[in-house]
């Protein structure tokens, strides 16, 4: 239920999602060649995401054919769960040195929703906050390990900020539009991924070792798994969240 | 050179004295710590006193008196002072007319609010159905010295949950609700409130609040709640312990009379 609507809605900003995805995949070379990939399954009946009342923002409303919904629980047609942040929580060798971040990660405000809704970023990497709507948004970061920020963007513009400390997750929100929420995982290493529209994620370029992998979802909380990789092998790590 | 001539002259001395007295009474006195604006009628009294003093001074010896009269006389007769004369003839009647108009024109003012700040307490009260004799009563919690810190802490919590909006963080009666009330909430830091009172008096005021005041305490205006509706006897005594602890005042104690009774 609501999947079609969600897919249609996402399609509106698909180009930008692709851009942001490019931001994650264009990650720098790392010391290792192993991968962990997997799917995030979902069981039970998915709750319906609340419909957003956009009557105050006709410009945003015009970007949707079906009524836009919030993106709290995004269940894919294949029964998997999107927008799950999967990352290496611990296990990296002490000698591991993160590569310098290249290029910014872009967060777009389009159609009065955030694209992407859940994403990762490196400590010190630039977050480019783009307003494609051209109406007033404010973007507020409410981290506890990072200093907060709250920027006004009343027009089509891009502001840049960075995070200084590792923190999973930093909530982002717009107070003009109380339904707009995004989540960013700030990490000192590039070993993270977000489950997409097919429910799969991939963490690549891991050095050999035994890792605790955590999967985070905004409504269903966290799950962890332990994975040992050697050389350039690819291990599978599936997660499963159940409706509450 | 010129100012010297004026400074030595009794007429200008007298004028300067009157102006200086006015400035001190109206503008300097209110700045002194613990002072308020001097009411108009009091200013008038002070100025009259100063005027009498000045007149005694200038008429003290014959020569000074005639020198004092010189400028006045000059203003009345000298041809070159004709403009001054004309000005005085216009200004003085105008001033008199203005004062007279102010007296005659009546405007409605708030009636005076004569209020006894510490009215006489009753000798006993009924607290939630229990009779408590106030005369000679001490704070019962003070008999348990070892528990006093606990009572103080209790009192502090109760104060912050209940009394703070009016009596304020600093216990000076300037809480964030204080501007909405008249009379203003009691200032416990002032040496005129709890510092002068027995704890039994404070207990009565807290327990019975504004509605429990006698007529001379203007019970219809006081926003003090009747705390017996909210707090137990022990809670009220705890708050009282806290008030004295936080401000550093000592409660007034009962003087034992010869017959053994309390006064």
């Amino acid at each position, binding site marked *: 239920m609501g999947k079609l609507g969600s897919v249609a809605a996402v399609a509106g900003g698909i180009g930008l999602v692709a851009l942001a995805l490019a931001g994650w995949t264009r990650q720098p070379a790392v010391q290792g060649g192993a991968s962990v990939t997997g799917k995030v399954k979902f069981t039970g009946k998915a709750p319906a995401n609340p419909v957003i009342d956009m009557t105050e923002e006709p410009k945003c409303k015009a970007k949707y054919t079906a009524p836009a919904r919030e993106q709290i629980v995004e269940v894919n047609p294949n029964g998997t769960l999107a927008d799950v942040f999967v990352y290496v929580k611990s296990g990296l060798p002490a000698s591991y040195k993160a590569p310098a971040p290249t290029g910014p990660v872009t967060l777009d405000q389009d159609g009065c929703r955030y694209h992407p809704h859940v994403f990762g970023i490196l400590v010190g990497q630039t977050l480019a906050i783009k307003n494609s709507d051209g109406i*007033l948004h404010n973007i*507020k970061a409410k981290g506890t390990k990072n*200093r*907060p*920020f*709250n*920027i*006004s963007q*009343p027009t089509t*513009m891009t*502001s840049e900020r960075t995070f*200084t400390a590792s923190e999973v997750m930093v909530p982002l929100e717009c*107070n*003009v*539009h*109380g339904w707009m929420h995004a989540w960013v995982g700030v990490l000192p290493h590039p070993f993270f991924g977000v489950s997409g529209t097919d429910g799969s994620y991939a963490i690549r370029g891991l050095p050999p070792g035994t890792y605790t992998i955590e999967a985070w979802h905004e409504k269903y909380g966290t799950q962890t798994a332990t994975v040992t990789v050697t050389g350039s092998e690819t291990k599978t790590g599936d997660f499963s969240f159940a409706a509450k | 050179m010129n100012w010297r001539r004026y400074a030595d002259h009794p007429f200008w001395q007298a004028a300067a004295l009157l102006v200086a007295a006015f400035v001190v009474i109206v503008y300097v006195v209110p700045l002194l710590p613990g002072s308020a604006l001097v009411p108009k009628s009091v200013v008038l009294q002070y100025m009259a006193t100063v005027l009498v003093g000045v007149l005694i001074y200038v008429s003290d010896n014959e020569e000074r008196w*005639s*020198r004092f009269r010189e400028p006045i006389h000059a203003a*009345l*007769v000298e041809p070159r002072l004709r403009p001054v004369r004309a000005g*005085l*003839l216009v200004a*003085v*009647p*105008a001033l*008199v*007319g*203005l004062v007279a108009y102010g007296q*005659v*024109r009546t*405007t*409605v*003012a*708030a*009636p005076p609010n004569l209020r006894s700040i510490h009215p006489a307490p009753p000798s006993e009260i009924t607290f939630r159905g229990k009779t408590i004799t106030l005369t000679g009563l001490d704070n019962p919690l003070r008999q348990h010295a070892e528990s006093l810190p606990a009572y103080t802490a209790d009192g*502090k*919590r109760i*104060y*912050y*949950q*209940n009394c*703070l*909006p*009016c009596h304020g*963080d*600093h216990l000076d009666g*300037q*809480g*964030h*609700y204080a*501007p*909405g*009330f008249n009379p203003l909430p009691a200032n416990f830091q002032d040496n005129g409130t709890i510092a002068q009172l027995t704890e039994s008096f404070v207990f009565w005021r807290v327990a019975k*609040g*504004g509605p429990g005041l006698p007529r001379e305490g203007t019970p*219809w*205006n006081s*926003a003090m709640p009747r705390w017996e*509706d*909210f707090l137990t006897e022990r809670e009220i005594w705890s708050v009282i312990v806290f008030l004295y602890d936080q401000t550093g005042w000592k409660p007034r104690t009962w003087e034992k009379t010869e017959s053994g009774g309390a006064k």
Partner: protein
Amino acid sequence: MKADRTALLAAVLLSVYPAIRLSAQDTTAGKNVYVKWCAGCHGETGAGDGPAASTMLPRPRNFTGAVYKVRTTASGQLPTDADLMRAIDDGLPGSAMPAWKGRLSDGERRDVMAYLKTFSSFFADTSQHIAALTFSKEPGGGAGAAALKEGRLFYDSIGCRKCHGDQGHGDGPSAPTLKDDAGFPIYAADLHQSWRFRGGPTAADIYRRLRTGLDGTPMPSFSDLIDQKFLTDEQLWRLAQYVRSLSPAETPEVRDVIHAAQIAGALPAAPDDSAWARLDRYWFPLVGQVIRKPRWFAPAVSGVWVQAVHNGRELALRVSWDDRSQSPDTAWLAFERRVLETMASDDSSPPPSAAEPWPDQLAVQFPRHIPDGMERPYFLMGAATDPVYQWRWTSQPRRAVAGLARGIDQFDALPSAPAAQAVYDHGEWRVVFTRALATPDTANDVQLATGRAIPVAFFAWDGSDGEHGSRMAVSTWYFLALDRPTPASVVVSPLIAMVVTLGLGMLVIVRAQRRGGQGGQGGRGAGRRSGV
């Protein structure tokens, strides 16, 4: 070997000791001050959860996150020491935080400021950048029509109205959804009450808040707009000056007596009659009803503006007050629920009922009879034995009734009601009550006599803030005076006094000149002067 060790130890001690001593000195002294004067609201651990916290909205600052509203630093940056000192010294107007200057010594305030910083590790983190922004000087001409028009232009173009509303009363479409970082409901500032602005009332204060934002609240920083040349610095100043112009130039002074002038002919019965603009208006602060159960610590109406005029037969009384919502309004139901949940921990009251679509209400209270002495009924809606006469207006159904209140809980309507007309205009209610001065029911209706001080009090409820019954904002007794026109005869006695004084003056001069002409004292005085 041993000497080496001693030297090393000494070096270590020397390098460490000053630091330890400094922090110990500041923070133990500061801790004592904090525990005694601050912890009651801000909590022993600085988490903003002291015993008084649950009676406050906005809540006391939680120091553990080191997120501060009023700063001179960029959005998200830690405040400077001077920023913290300013909050302590001057307090935060419109909240429960008092100004501590004059209450605590300079040393105590400095010590407590140092101690506050120990609640968060951010202050010890030397990588944190703390630098006050460079603020330009206020451009002149800020009160001019052109400047205000330009300011208004940006008020609209950068979307201030989304939260603060079209006319700045804090009633924008996003206002009912606002939360602070802790999730508590937060009101968009009412820009017509600059004396309640946390960071100060001047245009310069407003400009700084626009540059820095109010961290922990929905109010963002607008500095990026200047950096990206979307706005010039001067344009931001114009916006600040426009916002300043919405409030009175001075903090309204509370005057005891409302003077109702007498006019000839019809009274302005409509709330927006142009006659009202020419009449003096009086401000009366309202505060939460915390005297009878259930108490109410989050009053939404901070005061009322009152104007009155009469024509010898009738009285028209206009009461205007800022209210973010035209209650009942379903858009505010969720906000109301959050307010009730936030204030629910008031231990003395039964838990508030669920959010309901209450109307807005206003009560104007008089004694039944104008007292001859100073005695009057209990200000908080009278008592069973001594009721008060009230006009009660509700927004839904929109009507006014008259009645007798016998305490908060009992209101008995009387058959005759005052006429009332009301408008809700972008966050402000304006209600005009009209009633004959004299009525047939002399036992219950106050008979409004001219030239008397008639006690009057005001009560207001914002339904969308969960207010009804005893959950309301109250005032104490003030007075209404129906002025009599100054009769022409009043000028007679001053005129007589003036003529008499003039005559006496002439007499004195004539007599003195006659004597002076005969070579009296004037000649002698002149002679002495020539010798000087």
